[in-house]
C-alpha cells in the first residue's frame, strides 16, 4: 500500500498533467518516470509484460475515481482495446510542485506506445534486466525483443526522442543515460 493518502496522490497526477490524463498506460508510465526522476517514491513498481506497473497506483486511482476525486470515462479505442480518460473534479487535489507538474505534462505529451517503450527501457536499465555484453549496454535492444509488436513504424525512435526530451528537463535525479 502506498500510505495514508495514496488515492489523493494518485488523483493529484491528473491535475499535474493539466486537468486531464488520457489512458492507464500514460498514468502508469508517467508516474514511473516521474519517480525515476526523483519526484517521489510512493508507488512501488514491478515489471509486467506491458512494462513497469504499480498495483498500488492502479488501486489508488480506482479509489479516487470511486470517491469522486477524479472522473474516469472509459472509451473503446479503434484497435479494439479500451482506455480511460481521467479528468479533474473540484475535489482533485491541486498540484504542489511546479517542476514535477512540468515533468508530468511533458511526459503525458508523449504518445502512449512510445511512453511504454521508454518506461520499459528505463526499467530494464535500472534493474539490470538485460544482457550488457550481448546488447552493447543498450536496454532498447531488450525492449525491442520484449515488445516486437510495438517497436515497428518508427515507434522505437519516437520513444527515444520522447525520453530525450524528459532527460533534458532539470529534475531532482538525473534520468538514466540510455539515449
Amino acid at each position: 500500500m502506498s500510505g495514508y493518502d495514496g488515492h489523493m496522490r494518485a488523483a493529484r497526477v491528473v491535475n499535474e498533467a493539466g486537468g486531464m490524463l488520457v489512458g492507464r498506460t500514460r498514468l502508469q508510465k508517467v508516474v514511473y518516470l516521474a519517480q525515476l526522476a526523483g519526484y517521489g517514491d510512493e508507488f512501488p513498481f514491478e515489471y509486467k509484460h506491458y512494462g513497469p506497473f504499480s498495483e498500488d497506483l492502479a488501486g489508488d486511482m480506482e479509489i479516487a475515481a470511486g470517491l469522486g476525486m477524479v472522473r474516469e470515462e472509459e472509451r473503446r479505442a479503434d484497435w479494439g482495446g479500451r482506455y480511460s480518460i481521467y479528468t479533474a473534479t473540484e475535489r482533485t487535489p491541486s498540484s504542489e510542485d511546479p517542476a514535477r507538474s512540468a515533468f508530468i505534462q511533458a511526459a503525458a505529451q508523449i504518445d502512449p506506445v512510445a511512453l511504454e517503450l521508454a518506461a520499459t527501457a528505463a526499467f530494464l536499465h535500472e534493474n539490470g534486466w538485460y544482457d550488457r555484453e550481448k546488447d552493447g549496454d543498450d536496454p532498447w535492444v531488450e525492449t525491442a525483443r520484449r515488445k516486437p509488436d510495438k517497436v515497428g513504424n518508427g515507434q522505437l525512435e519516437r520513444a527515444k526522442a520522447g525520453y530525450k526530451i524528459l532527460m533534458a528537463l532539470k529534475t531532482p535525479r538525473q534520468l538514466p543515460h540510455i539515449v
Partner: protein
Amino acid sequence: MWQVIQTPPFQRLRRIRQLGFSEFVFPGATHTRFAHSIGVFHVARQLMRVIERHIRAAGNLRYRDSSAHIALAAALVHDVGHGMFSHAFEEIGGKLHLPLAHHETVSERLIRDSELSEAMRPLGSGFANDVAAVIKGGKPGDLYHSVVSSQFDADRLDYMQRDRLMTGVESSRIDATWLSANLEVASVNTGADEMAAGSVETLALGPKAFQVAESYVLSLFQLYPNVYFHKATRAAEKVFAALMLRLVPLVRQGDVRRTGLPVNHPICRFAKEPNRLDRASALDDSVFWGAVPQLMDAKDAVIARLARCLWHRELPKCFDIRLRLEHDLPLRAHATVAERTLRNAEIRERCRQIVVRIEAWSAERPGSTSPVLIDQAARQPYKKIQDSRSLLNQILIRQGPGDPVDMAEVSPVVASAETFEVCRAYIFDGDSESNVMLENIIGTNIKGDPDVRL
C-alpha cells in the same frame, strides 16, 4: 525433458508444497510443485497440439518445432525458482529486499546457469537462454508462448484442477475437456491507451464454450476466498513471514546464536549471502520444518513463540476488519452501481487508514512476542485494472463469424462481478491489549474522526 526432470533443481520441487500452509486447513493439500510442474507440461503439450493443428490448417504458415520445444520446456520449469512456502517467502523478499526470494528471478538464473542448463544443452546451445527469456518476459506476445502465459495457459489450467482436487472443495470445477476442445487461434490487435500498435496471435475460445468460459472465470475467482485467501492459511503465512522478518535481520547483525540455528544452517547461510543462487536454492519447505524444533529453543523470545505457533498449529485469531466495516456501513437495498462503487471505495480507504494506525501502534512496541499481524489482499474476478485493457489481457471469445471479443463485453455475469478483498488483523490468544486497541481504532474510524475524513 526427462533429463531436466532428473536434475537437482527440479527434484527440489518435490520438497515445496504447491499450496504452502493450506494443508493446515485442507489436510489433503499436500501436493508439491513437482507434481504441478509435470501437470503443466502435460497440459502444455495438449495446448500445443491446438496451435499445431491451427497452423497446419492455415497452410500459409510453418509450424516451428523449435519454438514449440522452447515453450514446452518453459512450461515444465516455470516454477523451478520457488522458495520455501512460495508466495509467503516472496513477501519476505519484498520487505527485506532479497531479489532471490522472487521465484521468477531464481527460475531464470537456474535455467541459464545450473544443472538445468546442462540438461538442456543437447537441445541447442542457446536453448536454455531462450527458455529463460520466455519465463522472464512473461509476455503473451507469441502464439507459442501463449501456452505458458495467457488467460488459458497450462499453468492455470493445471493448478485450478489440481488445487480443487487436493483440497476437496467441490466448487471451482472447470470443464477442461470442453475448453480445450473449443480453443482456437485468433489474431488480436495490440496497442496502448488510444493508440494502435500491431497484432499478435493468441488463444481464444469458440462460440460453444461461452457458458464454460463464464464458469471458468468464476471458478478461478472462487478459489481465492475458499482456498488461497482462507483466514487460517493466511494466518500461518503471516506467522511464517513475521518469524523470517525477525530471523533474517538477526543473522545479518551477527546474532545467529539468538535464533537457535547453527551458523551453517541453510537459512542462516541464505540470510548472510542472499544474492548467491546456491544459497537460495538450498531452501525448501523441508529445510524450514526441520529447523522449527531448533527455532522453538531460540533465545529470541519472538522467534521461539512464532516457531511454536507453527509447529503446534496454534494460530492467531482473525479479526476481519473489512467484514466489520461492511456490517457497520450497510448498503441500502437495490443500491445503484454508483452507490456500490462509492461504498467499496470508502471501505477500502477506511481499511487502509485503520491498517496505518495499527502499524503505528505496533511500531511503538517492537519485539513484542504477540505482534499484531496484518493481511491485506484483493482478487479481481476478471482483471479490469491492469494497464490498458488490451485484448491480450482478457479472455477472448468468438461468438459468430467475426473477430473474438472480450468476455466481459458479452457476459453480464463476468462484467458485474466485484473484487474480493480482505483486510484482517491476527491477534494472538490472550493478547487483550491488542484487542482493545483494535476495537478503539475501528470504533473511531466508523464514528468519524476529523483526521480520517474521506
